[in-house]
Structures are given as C-alpha cells and as structure tokens.
C-alpha cells in the first residue's frame, strides 16, 4: 500500500451507503474496511503493493465503466462504491471463485489451513456449490520443498502474496513462480530445496493452505488452539508473538498482521524456534551436588541449603564475597526482584547481567552524552528516516526485524543508506543489507573504529558542522578537529582500504539528512574499543547538529530480548533501578526507604571483576540466573578457574548447562512461555509476556524462587503475583509507566549535552581519536565469532526447528580467499593462533570480505579457545569476539 501523504488532506466517499472520510491516497478496499465493509480478496495485503491479480475484490463504482479492483483504486472525493450491495460485483466474485475452485482440490479435511482459510470462508459466503467446469483439476506432482516449510501447490490460488512478501518485505527473493497461467507453481530454484531466511512470512501470508509449516503439520485444527499473546524471547527487537497451544502443547507461533513492534513480521528464530520450552532436557526438580553426581530433591531442601550457604558465606567473609549474575532473557520483574534480593537481603551490590556483554556500551554512551538510557528514536523513526547509518550491525542476522524497518525506509520510502559493515555486497540465500546501501564503506571487523574516524574527518573537512553549537562550545569542536587533522588519509586508507573520497561522499549524504538515525550493532558494541566507537558516533551526531533534532538519534541494538530491561531494572551492579547511579547517596536513600531495607554503599562490580575476584579468592559464592558464562566466555577470560575456586555456586536454569554442571545447587526455573511479566525491547518499549503453557515439572518463575529464598534467609520479600512486582516497579520508576502501544522516545537532555561539550568530553578524547595499532601479519585472517540468523546464544540450540536449518558450526570464508589458500567448500581446516588450534569444516559465503572468517557463536565450544579476552577500561565490557588466526587445510580431507 502506498503510504498516504503525511498531510491531513482527506476525501469523503460512500461505500455500500456508508460515508467514509479517509486520507487522500487511501485505497478503496482500506476505506471500506474502516467503515466495516469487508471486501473479499486474496492477493491484496496491506503490507504489499497492490497486484490486482486475483480479481476477487471487484466493486462497482458509480460513473466508472466496468467493475474496478478495490485494492488498486484510490478513494476520491464523492466516489460512490457498491460492494455487497452490487449484484454485478457479487456475480463477478462468484465467477472468480468458480475459476479458482475449478482447480482447487476439496481436501479441506486434511488441510492445516481448514478453519482459517480465506477461500473456505468466501466459498461459504458465496455458496459456490456448482461449477461450470467438468474438466479434470490440474495436479502438480508433490515435491519436497524444505525441512520447515511445506508446499501443497494444488491448493495454490496464485495470488503471489508469498512471492511479493519475500521480495518486498524480506528482500530475500527466494520464491519463484514458475511456469505460466494456471500451471504456475511456487518453487525455489530448479529442483533444489528452499534455501532462505525461513522467516515463515510465506506461511503466514498464504491465504489458503498452499504453504504451511512442517513443524505443526497435521497436529491441530485452528479451532482447537488457545491463543496467548506474548513477546518473543530471542533478540532485542521484542516482537509480538502469539503462542498457539493445544492441551498444554506448543503447536505453533504466529504474529498478527499489524500488531506489535514487528507489525506481524517474524524471523526464523521467532517463527520456528519455539520448541525450547518443551525440550525433554528441561530441568524439572532442584538438584543438589553429592560428590560428582546430582541428586534430585524437593524445593524445601534445595532452598534451605542455598539460603543457609549464602548466610554462612556472608557471616564468614562478608556480603561482598557473594556475587550474582542474571541473564537478559529474564523478565523485568525477575531482574528487579533479583537485584532487590542481592542488595536488600544478601547485602551486596555485586551483581551483573548479560547487558554487560555489549549493550552497556551503547547505554552508557547515550547516558553520558544525551542523558538518557534509552534511544531517543523509535522504530517509526527508522522507517521515516531520510538517512540511515549502519555501523557493524549485520542487521539481518542480529536484529532481523529492526532490519525490516531499515529495508522499509530504503526500499519503499527512498531513504539513503550508508553502511560501515564487514560485509560485501553480494546476493545470497539470506538478505544482505549492504546491497541496499547508497554508500557502502566495507571494512574488516577490526576496521570499524578507523572508518568511523574517517567519516568524522570527512565531516569536519567538509565543515558539515552545527554552527550554533560550535559557537557555544568552540573548545570541543577545536579539540575534535585538531585530533582528526592529525590523522592522515593515508593511514586511514592503510587500515580500511577506503580512499578519502568515499568518506567525503558518505559525509555529504549524512550531512544532507534531515532525519538521521545511526544504528550500532554488535560489530561495534562487542569488539575492542566498543565504547569509544559508540562515543565517536555520538560525537558525529552532535557536531553535525543532528542529535537534538526530532527523529534523529543513535540506536544501539540489544542482542538479548531484555538487555535493556536488565539495565533499567538495576541488573548491573553500579546502576540502580531506573538507570540511576549507585554512587548517588540521595538515590540510595530514596530506594532504601521504598524497600524498607538498607542498600549497601559498597561498589557494584562487573562480570570481569567478579571473575577476577573469584580467582583471587575474594569472591566465595556466585548466584547465576539463566546465564551460562562457561559457554559464553572464552577460556582466556579465566572463567574456568574462577568457578572452580568458588565455595558455593548456585545456578537457576532451564537446562543443565555447562555452568550448571559445575554448580552445587541447580534450581529449575521456567521459561518465558510459562510465566507472566514484561520485557523491554531495544528501543525501550515495555511489553507483556504471558503464560501460554503450564510450568514444566517443578520449575518456578525466577522471581518466586528469589522471594522464597528471602523467606529462608529471614528477610522476606513476599509477592502474591507478578503484578504486585510490576506495581512496585511502576511506583518506583515513573519511566516504566508507559507500558502500552506507543511510548514516546526519550528526549535528549540539554544539560547533559552541555556538560559533555564543555568538560566531560576531555576525559577520554585522546584515546578515542587515535587509530588502533595494526599489527596483523600478512597471512593472518581476522576471525569473527558472530551471531547467526538462525540462532540466539546457546539457548536456541534446543529448538528442533532451528537445528533443521543450522545444526553445526563452520568457518565461513569468501570463495576467492578460500581458493587462494587451496581450500574448497566442506574441507577441514586447522584454525590456529598462540592460544590453541581447532579443526573445523569450511563454508563459503560471498558476503564475507577477504581476509576475514566468521564462525557462528552458537557453536563456538571449540573455537572460543582461540579468542583473546580484553575488558573495556570504562564500561567493563568484556571483548572476546575477534581473533587473528592462521588457516591451514588438513590434508586428506
């Protein structure tokens, strides 16, 4: 649907006798929907451009010759439309149905769509009981299509919605309508099975049962399903999902068109990754270590032991000998109660969450420069931006739905896209955002910081500067200019391979933007210097005068579904709920008054600090909730020896993870499908998570376990249900009151900006504005351990659907890079550096730049031993995603 112009010009028309006033440019079919007239259709979909191929939506329009397709006709002033009141239109629709039913099989009883099928509904409405056609129906031979998606082409009504969705929305173009006329059939490529993003969009958008999901095939009838609206638990996009359950079993997930932050679109993880909650390996009872073995016990025994042990450690070594670590996959309520438990009951601020792995870099940069801990933009601002800058996002694989917003802005609304990505423009089986870029600055994953400086240098050289701010803070501008002048274009070229004119062009495009959004991804946030790079991007927005303009801002992308919430709920030690500082006595006093418990004034500590203290014997007990640091961090972080030195390790988990296997007590928690609560997505939107299935075994929601422990420790924090926690949070934090459909994005705080440009920038401008040392040997390759589209952490490896698409790790190389080294697809190679060596198979991908290899982090059990570990001095974020390695083909493979 073409976007109606933003002006409020309206037209008034009559549809079936009812008057509708709609914005100019609205399609007749949409205008009709607004006054409650449902015009039947197959090929029309609000997300797609009109195709008018199915002819089902014909209406009579006065003064127009012949019937018109209402899906491709714009409403005009005074138009008189007849839909159900037109005999002629009704007859025409009957004929269209007759043509469709001439070939459509009557296999509704075995069709998964039966009961929610548009064709079934319309056939019923138009009582198409007889047919003029006596010929045989067309029959396509049944072909295997893909492991997750089933096609039954005899049922196809050839509306081309799936093909158009795959192209227009997803930009994947994996579906081919082959042949012509009535024999048109949706296929992949030749006889090959489908190889695509597996977003499930074609399944969701098919009006009939031609494309269905194989994961739920033949398991349900739609009217047996119970619907539960919730939020996806994989990435930071925070997509609305609807669990469809039958007798407490998860049958399928879908997302209602137009609802949620995702507008009904999902990715492979969201659509096919729901089996985690029902995995047979789920923990059902608390476990207590007896020697080398675990013994199942009842809750009372386990809780008593944990409570007693924590009290003992506290009595013997002090409260700060106890640390806590919680996952950003937990709900806000869980994280809030956890930090309240640790601060108020245990008496320590030594807690951390998975936001530490990278999201904190973004949040701290926002807080420092613009005084907010949330984006100052929303998804709508991305869609309506006129210029977008993506830095190190690999957005298709990390945050696919935010990626769809970028595609919408660029493909449909003509936004200009500048990308600084470690990707080559290349067509592949999944979409590639840099193919859409007007200005692509391709660098290695180690080159982001230099490329950002290059862009800044070009901006300064072109004088694309905010004169007003420059007048107010000349020293800030001069300091930046002087440092950028000291960097030579030759040095920038040497590190990025990009000449100065590329940066100049990109800077000009950036400077011309009125609504500019900068998206920052894990390539920046999770690699060395991440905080400095994010700060430099803030500088870029600030000196060009964009930062404070409406619709402009920096948007760091969160990897886990509630990384943002983990920060806001006080899940990182030095930050109290609401993003306020632990160091502020007034804040502390307010909070301890509200809680009725003192808040310790000891410093909070980060995960790297906890590891170090455990190694030195200063940390004696660790409470790990939903995190798996043994599998997340590389051995070079010292996590193994740290955990071994602990006197007491408690893990609260869904599965017996690597870390849980080392624990003294394992408490079974329930997954997001079994509890209520809220998640805060990457843009700061708080959304409700709802219970879809019963708790598995004896597992309990995380908050309930903390609450029970507090009782065991004689310092009870009791909550009747999750709503009480929500209420407490809302009373405490005014900013979280905005649970609802459209929160306004945070506004940059001018006093914070003023503080930054006058004094605060001086603190670290020197290290931020210098080029990194480039010490790569010539035959070395930069290995990036990165996120794959088909997985999320190690968690999704329990999802059988996703394992059908990607089940093992491979090291991916550019075909030419591989050819130069005599390596071909599928060969085994030895990957080595000073930290170790690993054997792994090779895969080839044209999107990977030369001199770079990537490996999916979800399968990094072995390869992570090659990763060096470094901690950000400012934000304490551990960096361990990049390594320099040698590659050698294993002879005989």
């Amino acid at each position, binding site marked *: 649907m073409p976007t109606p112009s933003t002006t409020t010009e309206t037209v008034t028309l009559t549809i079936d006798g009812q008057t509708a006033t709609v914005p100019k440019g609205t399609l007749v079919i949409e205008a009709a929907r607004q006054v409650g007239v449902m015009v039947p259709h197959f090929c029309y979909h609000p997300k797609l451009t009109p195709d008018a191929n199915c002819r089902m939506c014909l209406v009579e329009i006065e003064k127009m010759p012949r019937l018109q397709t209402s899906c491709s006709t714009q409403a005009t002033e005074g138009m008189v439309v007849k839909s159900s009141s037109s005999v002629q239109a009704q007859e025409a629709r009957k004929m269209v149905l007759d043509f469709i039913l001439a070939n459509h099989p009557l296999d509704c009883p075995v069709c998964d769509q039966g009961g929610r099928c548009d064709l079934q509904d319309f056939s019923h409405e138009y009582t198409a009981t007889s047919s003029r056609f006596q010929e045989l129906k067309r029959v396509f031979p049944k072909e295997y299509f893909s492991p997750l998606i089933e096609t039954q082409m005899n049922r196809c009504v050839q509306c081309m919605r799936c093909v158009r969705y795959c192209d227009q929305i997803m930009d994947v173009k994996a579906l*081919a309508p082959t*042949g012509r006329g009535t024999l048109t059939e949706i*296929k992949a490529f030749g006889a090959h099975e489908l190889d695509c993003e597996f977003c499930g969009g074609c399944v969701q958008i098919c009006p009939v049962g031609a494309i269905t999901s194989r994961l739920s095939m033949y398991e349900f009838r739609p009217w047996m399903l119970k619907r539960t609206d919730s939020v996806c638990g994989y990435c930071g996009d925070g997509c609305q999902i609807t669990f469809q359950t039958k007798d407490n079993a998860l049958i399928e997930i879908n997302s209602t068109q137009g609802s949620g932050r995702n507008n009904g679109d999902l990715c492979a993880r969201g659509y096919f990754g729901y089996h985690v909650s029902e995995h047979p390996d789920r923990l059902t009872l608390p476990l207590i270590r007896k020697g080398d073995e675990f013994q199942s016990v009842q809750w009372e025994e386990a809780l008593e032991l944990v409570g007693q042990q924590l009290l003992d450690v506290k009595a013997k070594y002090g409260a700060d000998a106890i640390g806590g670590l919680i996952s950003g996959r937990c709900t806000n309520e869980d994280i809030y109660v956890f930090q309240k438990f640790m601060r108020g009951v245990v008496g320590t601020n030594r807690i951390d969450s998975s936001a530490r792995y990278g999201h904190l870099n973004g949040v701290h940069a926002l807080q420092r420069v613009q005084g907010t801990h949330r984006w100052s933009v929303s998804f709508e601002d991305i869609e309506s931006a006129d210029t977008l800058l993506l830095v190190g996002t690999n957005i298709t694989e990390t945050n696919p739905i935010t990626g769809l917003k970028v595609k919408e802005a660029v493909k449909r609304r003509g936004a200009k896209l500048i990308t600084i990505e470690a990707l080559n423009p290349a067509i592949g089986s999944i979409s590639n955002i840099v193919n859409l870029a007007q200005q692509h600055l391709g660098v290695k994953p180690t080159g982001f910081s230099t490329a950002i400086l290059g862009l800044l240098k070009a901006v300064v050289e072109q004088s694309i500067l905010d004169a007003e701010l420059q007048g107010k803070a000349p020293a800030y501008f001069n300091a930046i200019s002087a440092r950028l002048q000291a960097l030579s274009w030759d040095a920038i070229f040497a590190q990025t391979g990009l000449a100065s004119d590329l940066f100049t062009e990109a800077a000009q495009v950036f400077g011309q933007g009125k609504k500019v959004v900068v998206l920052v991804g894990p390539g920046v946030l999770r690699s060395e210097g991440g905080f400095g790079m994010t700060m430099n991007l803030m500088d870029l927005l600030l000196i060009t005068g964009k930062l404070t303009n409406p619709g402009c801002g920096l948007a760091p992308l969160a990897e886990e579904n509630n990384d943002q919430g983990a920060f806001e709920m006080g899940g990182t030690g030095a930050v109290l709920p609401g993003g306020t500082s632990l160091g502020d006595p007034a804040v502390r006093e307010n909070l301890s008054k509200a809680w009725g418990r003192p808040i310790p004034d000891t410093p909070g500590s980060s995960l790297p600090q906890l590891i170090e203290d455990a190694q030195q014997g200063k940390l004696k007990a660790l409470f790990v909730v939903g995190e798996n640091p043994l599998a997340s961090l590389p051995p070079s972080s010292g996590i193994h020896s740290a955990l071994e030195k602990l006197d007491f390790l408690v893990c609260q988990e869904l599965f017996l993870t690597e870390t849980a296997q080392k624990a003294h007590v394992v408490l079974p928690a329930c997954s997001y499908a079994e509890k209520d609560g809220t998640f805060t997505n990457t843009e700061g939107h708080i959304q409700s998570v709802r219970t879809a299935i019963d708790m598995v075994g004896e597992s309990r929601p995380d908050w309930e376990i903390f609450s029970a422990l507090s009782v065991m420790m004689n310092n009870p924090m009791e909550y009747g249900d999750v709503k009480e926690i929500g209420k407490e949070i809302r009373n405490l934090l005014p900013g979280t009151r905005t649970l609802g459909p459209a929160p306004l994005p945070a506004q940059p705080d001018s006093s914070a900006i003023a503080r930054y440009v006058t004094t605060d920038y001086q603190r670290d401008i020197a290290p931020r504005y210098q080029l990194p040392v480039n010490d790569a040997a010539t035959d070395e390759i930069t290995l990036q351990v990165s996120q794959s589209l088909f997985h999320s952490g190690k968690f999704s490896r329990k999802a059988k659907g996703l394992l059908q698409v990607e089940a093992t790790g491979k090291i991916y190389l550019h075909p030419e890079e591989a050819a130069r080294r005599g390596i071909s697809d599928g060969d085994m190679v030895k990957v080595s550096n000073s930290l170790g060596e690993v054997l792994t198979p090779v895969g080839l991908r044209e999107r990977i730049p030369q001199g770079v290899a990537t490996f999916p982090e979800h399968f990094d059990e072995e390869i992570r031993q090659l990763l060096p570990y470094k901690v950000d001095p400012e934000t304490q974020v551990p960096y361990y995603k990049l390594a320099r390695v040698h590659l050698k083909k294993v002879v005989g493979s």
Partner: protein
Amino acid sequence: MLLEKFKDEVEEILSRYPVKRSALLPLLNLAQREEGFVSEPAMRDIAKVLELTPPQVFETVTFYTMFNLKPIGKFHLQVCKSLMCALVRSDDVVTWISKKLNIVPGQTTADNNFTLSVVECLGSCGTGPMMQVNDDYYEQLTEEKVVRVLDDLARDGNCHLKSGPFMFPTTSGKSR
C-alpha cells in the same frame, strides 16, 4: 564459465539497458545458444551478473517455452499449440510426430536427433498448423509433409521445405 568465455558480448548486452535486470532475456539466449539449453550453472552466473537471485532467473526461464531446461536433441521440433493453429488441428501434428518418432512432447528420441515440444504462438497464424525446427519454420503442415521433413532432417540434416524465419538485418550486417 559462460560469462568469461563471452565477456565482450555480455558487456555489449549489458550496455544496452539502463537497468541491469533488463538484460536477462538476451543473456539467457546467449546461454541457450552455447549449450542448447539453460543450465543451472548458467542461471547462477547470470543471476550474479544481474544482481538477481537464482530463483528470479529460474522463474523467467520457465515462463518462456523457447527456453529449454534440459539438454535437447539435434533438432528441436516446436509445434505451435496456440489458438489459431489449434483450430486447424495442431494436435494432429503432434500426433503425427509422436507416431513417427515414438516420443511425446517433452521427450527426446533415443538417437538424440529430435526433441518434441509444444509451444505458444510463433506468430505464423496465417499459415498454420506450423512448427519451428531449430531456427526454421515449416508451415501449412500435412502428415505427408511432416514425415518428409523428419526424414530429410534425419538423413541430410536439412530440408528445403523450410520457409523462414525472416530476420531483420542488424546494423552490423549480421542477423541476430
């Protein structure tokens, strides 16, 4: 690789169009001219040059009956099945050929000499029923005529009953 072998010609084709994907049909023609059919590697190569996905090339190939997705015999018998020819019994032409060569549409004879296809209108409606054999037209077909064409082709590799096609000369003097 096809595109390396005919680098100059590919570049000349690409230079004709302001939008890259417009060059799809000429490139497919080139691929078919080279191999007799459009192979999967050729489709992948073309997709890469035109910045399309392989399924997008594949769907175009399947739309046109003139493109073959399988290797074909030495002579490709393409019988027009569109309305005009059908009215003057083009299906009889198919039957005569089937009887003579013992193949049905879509098949190739065992000696790899003939492949039979039925195709959409070839623009020779005034002279139907008709068929195209490789680049030549044979019009106003009768059973006798069909048998003679097939015999001549099998024996001599040529038949003087052919009547076309008539190509417009290009600027370079060669016909395309």
